[in-house]
């Protein structure tokens, strides 16, 4: 009699499968609400799916769990994770269509905690599989673009239109585009302004060691001020500026709104970029700089052709930190009238309309995730080119 050795269990897969089982069995997959602000009641799978569909849905998820636990091939894991995502998305779309009476605009069908947990678990499984495949920077960006395209097409197809978040979107579609632009403008605008100031400041700190501790100390101090407090602190001087200088007010500088938001985000952005510029420049081999000087490169040429290219990966890492940080912080700017996706979040909190909160929160997470991935790929590319 031969003993078959069991394959080693995959730790992450086992954990995610356990979470999936809990989500499927104990948590509501969809929630039915009579209107957008009342608490909802859970609906079971069989209430919105025909028996065969509910059975195949559970079967697909069970298969995914088996693969997650026992198969180590990354491509197979990725394929099954994506199949799981499609199954979960189809089920929730079906729920929206089945549970909405024709023509009814008042009731809400919300994805429940079970749906979100399943989606997050499958997403983690997919990202883990991609990581195990060790794709190059170009491949990672391609995968991101494909995922975004697929998600965009699925949403545009109207399959999810009966779901609560899409209902909120339908009501707010004009505003959504406006707040999206505003969110990007605030995040990238303050980043651009910060880079313009922080890069020279970092170079200066590198060249003049005496000022380094002072500059970094002040920027560190700014970083420790809570964002809401900083918005508050900035209201008074900017308001006074707008009152005293008419053309400043004409430019849109006011105590509340975008101006204090941009200034605060700009201030928060300085430290990571300055600090990483200093670290990046310090990392450049002194021998290379000495040789460059000895061969007759001017200081400007050494900076442009030797020091900055060699420090660039580290500087870009700083910019990546700032971008992700800003995309998150812009949310808070909505509190002082800065706009952005945060406007939906706080409006939703005010109205206890969780779907509206999600309409703001999901794009913020996606935006931060995509920017981090894009800049990581860029840093990777730089590091490959210049070691």
């Amino acid at each position: 009699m031969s003993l078959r050795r069991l394959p080693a269990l995959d730790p992450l897969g086992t954990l995610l499968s356990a979470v999936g089982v809990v989500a499927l069995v104990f948590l509501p997959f969809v929630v039915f609400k009579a209107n957008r602000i009342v608490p909802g009641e859970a609906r079971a799978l069989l209430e919105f799916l025909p028996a065969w569909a509910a059975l195949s849905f559970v079967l697909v998820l069970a298969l995914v769990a088996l693969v997650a636990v026992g198969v180590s091939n990354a491509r197979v894991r990725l394929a099954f994770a994506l199949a799981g995502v499609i199954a979960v998305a189809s089920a929730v779309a079906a729920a929206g269509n089945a549970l909405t009476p024709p023509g009814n605009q008042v009731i809400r069908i919300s994805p429940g905690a079970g749906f979100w947990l399943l989606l997050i678990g499958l997403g983690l499984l997919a990202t883990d599989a991609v990581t195990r495949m060790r794709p190059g920077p170009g491949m990672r960006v391609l995968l991101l673009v494909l995922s975004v395209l697929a998600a965009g097409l699925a949403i545009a197809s109207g399959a999810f239109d009966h779901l609560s978040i899409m209902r909120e979107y339908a009501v707010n579609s004009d505003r959504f585009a406006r707040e999206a632009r505003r969110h990007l403008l605030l995040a990238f605008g303050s980043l651009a302004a910060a880079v313009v100031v922080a890069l020279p400041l970092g170079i200066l700190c590198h060249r003049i060691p005496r000022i380094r501790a002072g500059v970094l100390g002040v920027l560190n101090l700014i970083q420790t001020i809570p964002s809401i407090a900083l918005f508050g602190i900035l209201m008074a001087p900017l308001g006074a500026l707008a009152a005293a200088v008419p053309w400043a007010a004409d430019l849109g500088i006011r105590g509340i709104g975008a101006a204090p938001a941009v200034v605060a985000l700009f201030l928060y952005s300085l430290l990571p970029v300055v600090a990483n510029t200093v670290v990046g420049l310090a990392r450049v081999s002194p021998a290379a700089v000495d040789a460059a000087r000895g061969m007759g490169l001017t200081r400007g040429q050494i900076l442009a052709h030797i020091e900055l290219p060699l420090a660039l990966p580290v500087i870009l890492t700083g910019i990546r930190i700032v971008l992700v940080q800003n995309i998150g912080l812009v949310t808070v700017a909505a509190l002082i009238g800065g706009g952005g996706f945060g406007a939906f979040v706080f409006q939703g909190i005010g109205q206890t309309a969780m779907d509206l909160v999600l309409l703001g929160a999901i794009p913020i997470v996606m935006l931060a995730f995509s920017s981090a991935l894009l800049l990581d790929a860029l840093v990777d590319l730089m590091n490959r080119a210049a070691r």
Partner: protein
Amino acid sequence: MISIEALTKQYGAMRVVDEVSMSIESGSITVIVGTSGSGKSTLLRMINRLVEPTSGRVLIDGNDTASMPAHLLRRRIGYAIQSNGLFPHRTVAENIATVPRLLGWEKARIAARVEELLRVFQLDPVACGSKFPHQLSGGEQQRVGVARALAAEPALLLMDEPFGALDPVIRSKAQDDLLDIQRRFGTTIVLVTHDMDEAFRLGDRVAVMRQGRVLQHDRPGVLLTRPADPFVTRLSGTADRALKLLSLTTAGELAEPGPRESRTVAAGASLREVLSDLIWSGAEAATVLNPDGTSAGRVSLARLLAHGRQS
């Protein structure tokens, strides 16, 4: 010809280089040797003004180096350092092309020069030119560093401990290569080292520095036989100084007419090698052969011993 006149560098109260005057002949190799902190690197770096002198001046072919912008001066002087200082983000070919590019050479001329140098330094122009420095061995990186320093055909090459990071076998080869290249291009070389053997091996002239001053600047043989200062004796070492003296002369230089011997040595071999060969074989004398195989005369044991004697 390079004239160094009363060159001084002072940091606070410290005189790192103290009124050094010396002249360096064109086409020669001058080695500045000293312990660390002797001011040898500072002296070298004042020649291309990486360090600005506190007082004194440097004349190259009669022109004061202070009369032109420092970066333009440096483009005319080759510069190679211990850790080679190659640019890690540039290919080998791009590294070598650095100064020619700064000088605005035409692309074809740069490419031809890079290829020539790679060949001279026994690096494959096709395979090596497009590599990045980290893909080369330490010895190859060092050669690229020297090739880069020579790229714009400088008449003067400054080298700061160029072989310090190499292991003994590769270092010995690199020293031979440097001698070959110096003969080929006729470059004036000023080289800094703390290794007296290296100084004796490479230097037409050796300058011994201590505490910012040049104690003695002369041919290696003179340093051994007539040291100007006890420190020079100490730095050269006393245990094997007779052998060191023998190693400075070749068999060809000492050969005298006489009968043909059964033992033969090459004219380019050092007397030290000849002595070793005679001890090993038990012969009393050897015939010196020119590279073409003709006899250049003979060297006897007695004459060898006399040559190594202090006199």
